[in-house]
């Protein structure tokens, strides 16, 4: 039997078929959670906001254009929620310690990769929230400068300056000699 496409699942969810939307959530939950995590850097909050993103999407499922891809749309919904959350909080949060999990039982190369991933996550977490947002939208959601400016409601010049400064900070942190 063919696996239903996202479009099929959305149409089924609209008809009230139980489980169709649940399957759609299962498919995209990790990607959506990671959008939230890269912006917020707090696991609990990221999971809660990812959940909220799916609830918001469900509320708008009747108006969603099924000819569009679901994945970019739900990731933008999540990024917007995180943006609103950051604006309401105006605080910086500490990075969850995700780096050392299970390292003792893994081969050395895997440990090294995990360590490097931890460094990248740490460097991302150290960025100001507005820099993290532009990095997320440009590198992980592949939005253009213009699209980011519209999404964040900031001038194009700010998009470029935030993005270039963020990359400079990341490069300094990640390529600094130990």
């Amino acid at each position, binding site marked *: 039997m063919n696996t239903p496409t996202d479009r099929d699942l959305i149409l089924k969810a*609209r008809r*009230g078929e*139980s*489980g169709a*939307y*649940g*399957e759609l*959530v*299962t498919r995209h*939950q*990790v*990607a*959506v*959670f*990671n959008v939230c*995590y890269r912006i917020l850097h707090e*696991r609990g909050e990221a*999971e809660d906001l*990812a*959940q909220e993103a*799916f*609830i918001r999407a*469900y*509320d708008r*499922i*009747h*108006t969603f254009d099924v000819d569009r891809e679901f994945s970019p749309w739900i990731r933008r919904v999540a990024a917007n929620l995180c943006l*609103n959350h950051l604006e*309401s909080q105006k605080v910086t949060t500490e990075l969850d310690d*995700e780096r050392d999990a299970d390292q003792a039982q893994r081969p050395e190369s895997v440990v090294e990769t995990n360590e*490097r*991933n931890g460094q*990248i*996550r740490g460097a*991302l977490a150290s960025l100001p929230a507005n820099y993290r947002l532009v*990095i997320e939208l*440009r*590198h*992980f959601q592949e939005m*253009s*400068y213009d699209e980011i400016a519209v999404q964040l409601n900031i001038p194009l010049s700010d998009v*470029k300056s935030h*993005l*270039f400064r963020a*990359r*400079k900070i*990341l*490069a300094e942190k*990640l*390529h600094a000699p130990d």
Partner: protein
Amino acid sequence: MHLTDHLTDVQLNEYLDEAASERAQIEAHLISCGECSARLTDLQALFSELESLPDLALTRSLAAPFTSPRSLPVQLPAWFPLTVTLQAAIALAALVIAAPFAIRLFPLPAAPSLGRVFIQLQTQWTAWLDRLPAASQFKMPILPSLSFELSSLFLMSALVVVSMLWLVGNGLLLRDQIK
């Protein structure tokens, strides 16, 4: 841009983001300049590292609230909210049409002045105290009479104004939580 000048960080960033207007000139410069070429390679490496960052796993399934049909909120069709507005409009129209008939059928009783009600209550209270033997020694202070009438309209207006101020004040205090 002169081919001998080094590329700026902005040019390199825009080039990798495919947003540079002078792409051909940048490429020509990169061929001849080892320093700029190395800077571009470093920036590319950063892009690759960011984009190859693996996804973290979830600690709980986000699909759980959506798998049970009972837990799903009822999906109302898009036109449903319009019916609510229509119902409100019909109700308002019915009220306007019925109001003159209702007033004729059920005439409003004359509202007593609140000031008079208070005076009556005070009179009853002092009369009751006078009847008490122990209280006969005690003289109740006589409240100063006001030089103006506190009409029920005035008291009601004051109550409405205070309530509005209270609501606005609470709204301002709680606006962050409401968001």
